[in-house]
């Protein structure tokens, strides 16, 4: 019995959103396979200069992938354990109550339930169906992939233990998720924002027939095996997007001069917008994107790197396709616009706040010295 079978109101035929998501994802994936196969088959026939370019693409691609994949694997394993050991009903119970309180709680739930952005969409869909408020569900959807210990660890590793970066990323992710969650909850009622008869493409991964299966697998070891099985599913579902994202990054970093890509880089609004656009296109996993962001040190300032790390887990091409299976189009437009605006404004404000603090510290030191 599948998740869809649990909810007879959901038609077995995929909705328009599901089809759109499927087509977008499949086209991207097939294009990647064709390009990769072409590189492998025709490498020997390329002139020397092109061979060097291809080698550089492969070197960067594999470098990012080998560093990010272990984190993605750990995330997939945790997702499998959540799938088996935590019921969505229990989560929904935590999220019931007053709206503001539930939003604040939901945005922090990633600390207890660390899941990446791909795994979180079907979980949120189930939460909404179990009665969780829309605003809380959106807050969990946006903050979960950022405000969690795995992402904190990977960010710390990527930035060589710079806890200022880690704290800023988690704090900004939390605040933005709360603000956008409240805004979406204010504008839309649950029924207005959600597709009533949609079917998300990942429903099968986490919804599933856990209950009857679990009733048969009473032994703890059996449940662990089941969790590992779910983790392997997530490895397939999420790992492929990580592979493609790392490959696109390798191509961009090799063939396009970074100065041109980001308008000379720097720390201004244009660099921030450029990095937000890059995060949207690259579709990197939140457990891995810090490594890519860190690789832009020296080219793009702190605000640009932070915009990349905060926007990516909330809004990218892959997520947009998945949102089509969960929200109505106008809700997606509102969500996308509010996320982009909130990320931009909050990071600008954060930058000014940090400058102000530095100024105060400097002035206080001078006054003490004098």
């Amino acid at each position, binding site marked *: 019995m599948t998740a869809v079978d649990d909810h007879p109101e959901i038609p077995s035929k995929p909705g328009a959103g599901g089809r759109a998501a499927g087509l977008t994802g499949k086209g991207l994936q097939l294009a990647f396979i064709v390009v990769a196969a072409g590189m492998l088959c025709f490498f020997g026939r390329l002139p020397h200069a092109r061979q060097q370019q291809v080698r550089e693409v492969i070197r960067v*691609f594999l470098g990012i992938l080998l560093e990010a994949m272990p984190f993605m694997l750990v995330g997939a394993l945790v997702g499998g354990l959540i799938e088996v050991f935590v019921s969505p009903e229990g989560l929904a119970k935590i999220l019931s109550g007053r709206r503001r309180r539930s939003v604040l709680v939901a945005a922090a739930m990633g600390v207890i339930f660390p899941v990446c952005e791909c795994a979180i969409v079907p979980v949120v869909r189930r939460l909404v169906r179990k009665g969780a408020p829309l605003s809380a569900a959106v807050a969990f959807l946006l903050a979960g992939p950022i405000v969690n210990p795995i992402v904190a660890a990977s960010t710390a590793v990527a930035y060589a233990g710079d806890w200022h970066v880690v704290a800023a990323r988690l704090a900004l992710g939390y605040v933005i998720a709360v603000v956008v969650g409240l805004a979406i909850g204010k504008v839309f009622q649950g029924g207005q924002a959600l597709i009533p008869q949609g079917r998300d493409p990942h429903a099968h991964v986490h919804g599933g027939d856990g209950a009857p299966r679990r009733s048969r697998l009473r032994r703890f070891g059996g449940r662990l095996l089941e969790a590992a*099985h779910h983790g392997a599913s997530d490895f397939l579902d999420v790992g492929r997007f990580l592979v493609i994202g790392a490959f696109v990054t390798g191509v961009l970093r090799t063939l396009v001069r970074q100065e041109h890509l980001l308008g000379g880089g720097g720390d201004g609004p244009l660099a921030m917008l450029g990095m937000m656009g890059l995060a949207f296109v690259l579709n990197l996993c939140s457990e891995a994107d810090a490594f890519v962001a*860190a690789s832009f040190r020296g080219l793009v300032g702190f605000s640009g790197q932070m915009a990349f790390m905060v926007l990516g887990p909330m809004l990218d091409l892959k997520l947009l396709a998945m949102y089509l299976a969960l929200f109505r189009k106008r809700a997606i437009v509102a969500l996308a616009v509010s996320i982009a605006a909130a990320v931009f404004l909050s990071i600008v404000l954060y930058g000014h706040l940090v400058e102000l603090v530095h100024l105060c510290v400097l002035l206080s030191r001078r006054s003490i010295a004098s």
Partner: protein
Amino acid sequence: MTLAVCVAWLGSFAWLFAGGGYTYFLAPAYGVLLVVGGVVLAAFTVGVAFGGRACAHGDATRAAWVPLAILVVPLAFLAANPRPVPTSYAFAARAGYSRLWKSIIALGVLDHARGGARPAQGSARLSPYPTSGPAATMPGPRQRVTPLDVALDYPGNVGQGIAMDGMVYRQEGLPAGSLVAFRFVITCCAADAWPAGILVTSEKARAFPIDSWVRVTGTVASTSVKAQDMPVVHAERIVPISPPGNPYIENRLRKGARR
């Protein structure tokens, strides 16, 4: 098929870690990530093999070929190119944006060469170098250093005798009798590696092809390019060497790199 992909990735992690090949992609300290990933992959392998069909649709057992093929692509790249070394192409491409180190690596030379009309190969646009040091000071014992060490210890190391390994870079605009010996400095992975190159002067500089590995024995001096002070090594001897086991050098100034 899912089982085969999990086993293939597990085998790749084990092969990279045991053979040390991961140092071509990751900083040595990050090898532990492969161990962690390998343990998780082993769990997935057991889960897929013995966990049965966790979901009725059997997503992990009857997975579509497209995601499986995508996950095989990196392994195919790895098999085709297991030890990719960052070459002069990468040096030239990345040197352009490492402004952070502009004052301490050969980027001043590169910028100088890029600016204005490019002189013909071998012309003495930068020559003669206004140098100081080697003629006035006695070289000390030959200390094994990297190009990054030379750059970071400058100007305190002027007059010091050094032995430095690196790859050869040469481009239009560099004068006859000079080359750049470079290495890549790694912090986390190959994507964040940035180049550190030191200008080397020698009468035999042109004898060494681009991208070949050399050991430069000589004395650190200072030079000025576009009013920018930078180190130069006056080579007494340059010999070709075999590529080292790890093509990268570790970032001595991790904190500094973030500034």
